[in-house]
């Protein structure tokens, strides 16, 4: 027992004294801390904006209501915007995901919703292209590089400078010697993961609830995947240069090329012409009604809201009831395209998840974004909540509009409050399982290869 500890201790010492190890570990920690800082800055900025909304909303409505004094609600209702927002989950600081691309606030009027739903956020497109250096980037892109740096010459380096020969003749149990080397590196990687993750919890102030543990689990499994992948390469028993080249090539393939190709496959398989179509249809659907008899438009409206049938709509002049009925008609006519659009976005999500089965990097990124609620699904949920809010607002105003209530007689703060999307706890098991299967495959393969190339070896080149 004692000699095992000694070996392990010396193995550790030998490993940790290496300049490259310390250097890369420090680099990674620095980037990690910067990543936390960056994620915090971006999300805090968004949260600050979200917090300012209620004041803006109140001021805005006050102004509208005072301007509208003396006019009926039907006229005034055209002006106000109602703000909605997509609050960031605590984990969004860890993985900003799509939150920088998709708008996190949207304001809607009582007019047709489809024309208002896809308003973009103002962002610097070059920043979007380059992407965020957030914690998830550090874990998903940079951690593998650390693992590569720690393992690529683990055995080949010793073979190349000759220690390996002495090592092999020194012990009757070469398996143990290899195992110790692996163990030390594995322990180091795991320590680094936990160290960075726990500092993330502290710096980002993550709540100690299930999603945090899920996040930790995903990262752990992901790191183990890379470790086992590197071990497979080491177990091939090739030269240091070969190992480094192969590992870096795999990294580039998995992190850059595969997603690039996969993205093209997704876009080609599920194109979204509906995006433009929805806008066009909604616009036509609404505007053509101006030149059509009012009755059919009103019938469309009554089909949904029969309770307003009792109010007269004059055929020969403008009336607010008719105006909002036209807006609704625009939405109804584009509803089909809009539904197709949403379902296609969901299809894209599902399809990319399936493609990601072949690439644990993608899987891990998707899982992390799921935990953080910063993926496309979250945005779709947000858009749905905006639609819902829009409906609520309309329905709040309809009675005042049809009753021809004066602006000052209406309660301008009594409208239904916006109910933001709540945190959605996602099921991650299938993604995690996929990575675990990859790990198992890697482990099995490396064990076989280690036996073949290092333990039962009869090949003078590696001797």
């Amino acid at each position, binding site marked *: 027992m004692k000699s095992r500890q000694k070996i392990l201790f010396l193995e550790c010492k030998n490993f940790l004294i290496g300049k490259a190890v310390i250097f890369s570990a420090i680099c990674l920690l620095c980037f990690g801390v910067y990543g936390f800082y960056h994620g915090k800055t971006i999300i805090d900025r968004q949260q600050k904006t979200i917090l300012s909304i209620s004041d803006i909303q109140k001021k805005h409505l006050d102004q509208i209501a005072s301007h509208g004094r003396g006019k009926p609600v039907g006229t005034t209702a055209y002006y106000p915007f109602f703000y909605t927002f997509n609050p960031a989950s605590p984990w969004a600081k860890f993985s900003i995901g799509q939150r920088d691309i998709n708008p996190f606030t949207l304001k809607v009027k009582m007019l047709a919703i489809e024309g208002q739903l896809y308003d973009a956020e103002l962002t610097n497109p070059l920043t979007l292209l380059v992407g965020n250096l957030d914690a998830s980037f550090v874990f998903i892109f940079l951690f593998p590089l650390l693992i590569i740096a720690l393992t690529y010459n683990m055995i080949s380096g010793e073979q190349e400078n000759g220690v390996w020969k*002495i*090592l092999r003749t020194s012990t009757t149990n070469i398996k143990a010697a290899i195992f110790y080397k692996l163990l030390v590196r594995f322990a180091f990687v795991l320590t680094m993961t936990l160290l960075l993750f726990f500092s993330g919890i502290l710096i980002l102030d993550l709540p100690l609830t299930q999603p945090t543990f899920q996040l930790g689990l995903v990262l752990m499994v992901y790191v183990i995947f890379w470790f086992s992948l590197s071990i497979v390469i080491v177990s091939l028993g090739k030269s240091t240069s070969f190992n480094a080249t192969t590992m870096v090539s795999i990294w580039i393939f998995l992190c850059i090329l595969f997603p690039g190709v996969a993205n093209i496959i997704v876009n080609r398989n599920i194109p979204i012409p509906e995006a433009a179509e929805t806008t066009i249809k909604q616009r036509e659907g609404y505007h053509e009604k101006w030149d059509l008899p009012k009755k059919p438009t009103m019938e469309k409206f009554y089909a949904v809201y029969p309770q307003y049938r009792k109010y007269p709509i004059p055929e020969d002049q403008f009336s607010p009831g008719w105006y909002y009925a036209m807006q609704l008609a625009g939405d109804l006519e584009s509803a089909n395209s809009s539904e197709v659009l949403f379902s296609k976005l969901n299809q894209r999500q599902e399809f990319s998840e399936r493609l990601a089965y072949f690439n644990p990097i993608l899987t891990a990124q998707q899982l992390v974004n799921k935990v953080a609620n910063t993926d496309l699904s979250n945005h779709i949920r947000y858009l749905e909540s905006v639609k819902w809010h829009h409906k609520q607002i309309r329905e709040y105003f309809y009675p005042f509009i049809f009753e021809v209530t004066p602006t000052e007689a209406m309660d301008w703060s009594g409208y239904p409050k916006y109910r933001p999307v709540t945190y959605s706890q996602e099921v991650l098991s299938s993604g995690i399982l996929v990575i675990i299967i990859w790990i198992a495959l890697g482990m099995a393969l490396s064990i076989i290869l280690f036996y073949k190339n290092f333990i039962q070896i009869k090949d*003078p080149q590696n001797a």
Partner: protein
Amino acid sequence: MLEATNLTKRYGNHTALNQLNLTVEPGEIFALLGQNGAGKTTTINLFLGFIEPSEGMAQINGVSVSENPEEIKQYLAYIPETVMLYSNLTGLENLEYFSSLAGFEYSKTELAELLSTAGLQTQAFDLRLGGYSKGMRQKVGIAIAIAKKAKVLLLDEPTSGLDPKASNEFSTILKSLAARGTAILMATHDIFRAKEVATRIGIMREGCLQSVVRASDISANELEELYLRTV
């Protein structure tokens, strides 16, 4: 202790070692001389179990190397031409590491004694190996061999690149090891060093052991003449 019977290694058409018969007894130092490619390193690798013989058998302590590659490791120690140990660890730590791997437990004082026995100066014990000269690294290699109580020591070109003084020291240590009953097989180019340190000398050519002489029976000049005639 060390025995080769009809030991042969072929790579395709090329015969690297042909029908080698050789015995090295405990306390004996056997030096293999020969040109590059004569089969010296092949012989050592066969004894180490790094390669499989095409024919014949290599035995250590009566155990077949190819049949029990793991068992024989407890009897032998090996020092390659360039001894590169872990340069981040000190001499003492290297010794501790390798002897622990071999299943021995030594206290710090015991380890220090072993290094002294191998001829390393005390000041160097706690310095990182990165700063060692070749001769000093070899001494650590010897200490590793002593520490695991190796019955057999295999050396590949141990004196190449050593200055005369270091080379001389090395011979002394080898002799003292042999005196403790270790069987030593070394491959070398250095005729004079072989004559001085070895008990027996074999000259190889094209994979065959051409002649074996007792070092005491022959003068250095005669040995050189024999060598040149043989190769």
